[in-house]
């Protein structure tokens, strides 16, 4: 009985305030979609980090016959120096997990594979590519140790940390995430303000009912619940729209467009998406209800 009465009051309120209800629903939907997108970018960065940090190596490129670096003034590296470097790398275990030597010929094969469809392959010969040691570290953040030991010494053209290249890319993604989340935060604030205003209007429209309810001794629960539910229902509808938009984004943008075109990397999984959806959905409801509750404290004093 109590529940039915509260629900009927709630839906009456939603109907009476239809334009405001729609405003809240749309704002919540847009806000939560952005919020979810921000969280997805973060999940994307995480899964890419997991994927790539497992694969990154430090490359020690060795001098070729025509390398311009001062450390290569003696010309191409000799087998003795190369063996010396390999010995020293072995001495750095267990930081150094794996050492792999890539000859000019192998480098050329990789190159051909990578640029299969490009005319550039016709102008490059195996001789133009440097031989290198590919070093896998047990802790990829300790790149400095390798750099300090080998950068600039005779026979070494360059020490390159792939992780640094990736980090630049991750910084870009992080920037995107910060932007998405800041916009979402601003929108959440707007949503809260809109809910506050909506509830204020609703409380004003029903001040006679509320006055009578107080007079006859209705509990605070009975008086406030319809307003709180009004906010919660609008937020829930908006939240469902946002959830739909995020799922659609995963299906149509990530799975159908991005993943087939960029096969070399991992994209957010359904597991990660399903983890984000309830957070997004509940955030909307919680914010709307808190905003409504605070408004009611001010406007519906006993």
């Amino acid at each position: 009985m109590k529940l039915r009465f509260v629900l009927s009051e709630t839906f009456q309120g939603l109907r009476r305030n239809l334009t405001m209800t729609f405003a809240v629903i749309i704002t919540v939907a847009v806000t939560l979609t952005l919020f979810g997108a921000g969280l997805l970018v973060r999940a994307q960065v995480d899964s890419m980090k997991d994927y790539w940090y497992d694969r990154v190596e430090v490359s020690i490129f060795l001098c070729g016959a025509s390398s311009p670096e001062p450390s290569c003034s003696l010309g191409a590296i000799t087998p003795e120096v190369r063996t010396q470097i390999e010995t020293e790398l072995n001495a750095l275990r267990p930081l150094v997990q794996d050492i792999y030597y890539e000859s000019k010929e192998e480098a050329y094969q990789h190159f051909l594979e990578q640029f299969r469809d490009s005319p550039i392959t016709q102008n490059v010969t195996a001789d133009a590519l440097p031989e290198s040691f590919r070093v896998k570290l047990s802790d990829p953040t300790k790149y400095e140790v390798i750099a300090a030991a080998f950068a600039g010494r005779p026979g070494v053209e360059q020490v390159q940390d792939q992780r640094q290249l990736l980090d630049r890319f991750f910084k870009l993604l992080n920037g995107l995430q910060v932007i998405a989340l800041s916009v979402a935060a601003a929108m959440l604030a707007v949503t809260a303000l809109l809910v506050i205003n909506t509830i204020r209007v609703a409380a004003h429209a029903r001040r006679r009912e509320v006055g009578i309810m107080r007079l006859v001794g209705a509990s605070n629960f009975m008086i406030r619940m319809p307003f709180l539910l009004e906010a919660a229902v609008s937020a829930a509808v908006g939240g469902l729209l946002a959830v739909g938009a995020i799922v659609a984004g995963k299906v149509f943008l990530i799975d159908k467009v991005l993943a087939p075109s960029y096969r070399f990397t991992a994209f957010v999984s359904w597991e990660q998406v399903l983890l984000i959806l309830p957070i997004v959905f509940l955030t909307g409801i919680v914010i709307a209800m808190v905003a409504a509750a605070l408004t009611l404290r001010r406007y519906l004093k006993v």
Partner: protein
Amino acid sequence: MITFERVTKRYDKRNRPALQDISVGIQPGEFVFLVGASGSGKSTFLRLILREERATTGKVIVAGRDVGKLSRWKVPQLRRGMGAVFQDFRLLSSKTVYQNVAFTLQVLGRKNSQIERAVPEVLDLVGLADKMQRYPDQLSGGEQQRVAIARAFVNRPPLLLADEPTGNLDPATSVGIMKLLDRINRVGTTVIMATHDAAIVDQMRKRVIELEAGQLVRDEARGVYGQDHQP
């Protein structure tokens, strides 16, 4: 039923208090007129009982409870023990007579079966059994006030507060309302009615408490309105 112990109510510091040092007791089952000019403190007296206001100093005790000390969440419970009627009826124009009265029981969470029994019963008591499906604006002022009384009384509270219930009604209609309040009083309900309708007070011959500028100036068991009765 109700005890005022040296009650003073100040709304702000500059003006004189709305009520000053009032001590008075009202027994269960009494019918009390609260008389006095506008601004004499009648409404404040009622609002203190309803706990819409709190006494600045002194105690207001209703049914054994010091209402000034009542925590906020217990106020609804206090108000369920009293009905209130006002000069402006305060009906919901979008609801029928039946729905207006049922509203009280609905917001108190009563069962449907109980509502369906109690509402026609109380509407019969106030003489509106044949107008249950009308809307307030289809009723006369006197009928609207009867609906308001039905709403206040449907929960059968032991106390009924009426703030100028006949203030908007013509004398003939007022008599009808007074008969109804008298009937409610006769079944054991304590009735406190603020009014400045001298004819009604003189006719009923009930206890009269007179306020003047916030002070209690007269408390007579079978009083009249009494312009000639100044202390």
